């Protein structure tokens, strides 16, 4: 009796918390479709005016393009490099492995304001402020720990015996890597790419310091607007970013499902 009572209490509490966690996001999405001239909830009418303004404005367009370019660079660079590192971590025994891994995770821990200033300092000396490529690579550094964590978890499930078998059957190292290791790791790699892109797409402080006037990303534009005067277009931009996040989580869910299915087949 007592037990059921406490379980129900827990359920009610968790449900309330879920509402609290999702409500702010839901409210922003609803506001994005507001027909009013200012930010007010609940909106008195619905319209697409703010989305029209977001996608129609050349400055917002350029920010969106900057975000996409920088995100793509960060995603490709961090996943490629991170994959090689994750593979080595799982396949080779070497000294101080745990220490090295924890060092490679340091970029998530260092306060982003410090990382941003240090990178700004270096970019200033090198004359690379405002460079898409450099900003993309800086984001890749920040995304790499995330890539590493995702790939370590994904590759962990891949049986090293498959590689041994392929090698034993006469495959060359490169051949086995491309035909056995990569295909099996593919869902994990795709997940890592998605989250690396997202890490860059949402990153604010490094972009704020390194973008200059030219390479301003979406979060930088939002930041500038929130600091000056909050324009309702921000709600539409936010809803767009939320949609991108949701889409990436959905695709990742599908990939995870496939990975799980494959594992079940392998163990059966």
């Amino acid at each position, binding site marked *: 009796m007592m037990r059921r009572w406490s379980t129900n209490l827990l359920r009610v509490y968790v449900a309330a918390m879920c509402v609290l966690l999702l409500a*702010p996001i839901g409210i*922003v999405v609803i506001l994005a479709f507001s027909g009013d001239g200012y930010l007010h*909830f609940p909106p008195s009418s619905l319209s697409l005016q703010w989305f029209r303004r977001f996608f129609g404005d050349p400055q917002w367009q350029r920010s969106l393009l900057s975000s996409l370019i920088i995100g793509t660079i960060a995603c490709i*660079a961090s996943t490629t490099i991170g994959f090689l590192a994750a593979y080595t971590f799982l396949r080779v025994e070497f000294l101080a492995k745990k220490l090295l891994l924890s060092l490679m995770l340091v970029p998530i821990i260092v306060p982003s304001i*410090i990382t941003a200033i240090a990178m700004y300092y270096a970019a200033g000396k090198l004359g690379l402020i405002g460079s898409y490529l450099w900003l993309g690579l800086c984001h890749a*550094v920040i995304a790499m720990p995330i890539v590493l964590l995702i790939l370590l978890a994904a590759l962990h499930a891949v049986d090293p015996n498959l590689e041994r078998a392929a090698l034993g059957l006469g495959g060359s190292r490169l051949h086995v890597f491309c035909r056995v290791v990569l295909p099996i790791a593919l869902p994990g790699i795709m997940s890592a790419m998605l989250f690396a892109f997202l890490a860059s797409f949402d990153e604010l402080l490094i972009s704020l310091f390194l973008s200059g006037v030219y390479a301003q990303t979406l979060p930088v534009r939002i930041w500038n607007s*929130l600091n000056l005067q909050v324009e309702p277009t921000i709600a539409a931009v936010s809803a767009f*970013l939320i949609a991108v996040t949701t889409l990436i989580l959905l695709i990742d869910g599908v990939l995870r499902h496939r990975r799980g299915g494959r594992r079940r087949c392998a163990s059966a």
Partner: protein
Amino acid sequence: MANTIAISRAVPVSTARASRDRTLLLMLPALVILLLMFFVPLVLFFVRTFMEFEGTTAQFLAQAGDLLLSQPYLTALATTNWIALIVTVTVLLIGYPIAYYLTTGKGPGVSIVVLAVVLPYFTSIIVRTFSWMVLLGEHGLVTDTLRAAGLIHEPLSLMYNRLGVLIGMSYVLLPYMVLTLFAAMRGIDASLLRAAEGLGASGPYTFRRIYLPLSLHGVLSGALIVYILSIGYFITPALMGGQHDIMIAMLIDRELEVAVDWPSAALMSLSLLLVTLVLYALYYRVTDIRRLIGAR
């Protein structure tokens, strides 16, 4: 190709070693890029900034001492730690039951809770902060609802003050706590709980004497990670805080943007970085990083 097989059969040990060394090379790009683009700029930023100081070492140390004992710095330090502490405790109290439900619950409810934790976790911090600015603003939903209910008459000040910062930061950091706790709680052996039940222990008793102690290292990891992230926090307090909520990260930014005082910014950054790294070392001891690479 046939040759390779013949060789690997003939001298397996040395080939294995050679291939191991060659595989190790795959780590190189990651190491190089991390070193060149992260660690070197970090060290250079400190070293060069301090080198540019004109004067003797004694003068430098005296100035550094003055800065680190100055009123704005000490106030920001106290504010930062106080906010970090409250946020950590809040997030722990809110997050523990959620993580507990995630590990013990069953059915579709669990997937919804996972979504409710993961979606905000991956949503841009600036978007999450913006949503709370809309909610807590002078004509925001919270004030309007309270006013409509007749509970308040004056517009409530929920933003541009400490409360706003605490709410915004707790919201942003809650998922970190829940996910860390969840990872730790998942490792708790359910048969222990069943055994306690079978031996006649009540639910609350089992929870207090078995579950809670076993989850404590998760609590410690979660608290450390949230505290680490809190003390370096910038975006949310900068947007939602008032004049009295200047945290260290904001002070550092102000030194650069407003005062263009690189040595002061570097010195404060260094102190913040050192504290962060010490806490990270502690986190590293508490949390089993090895699990990630499959070593036991």
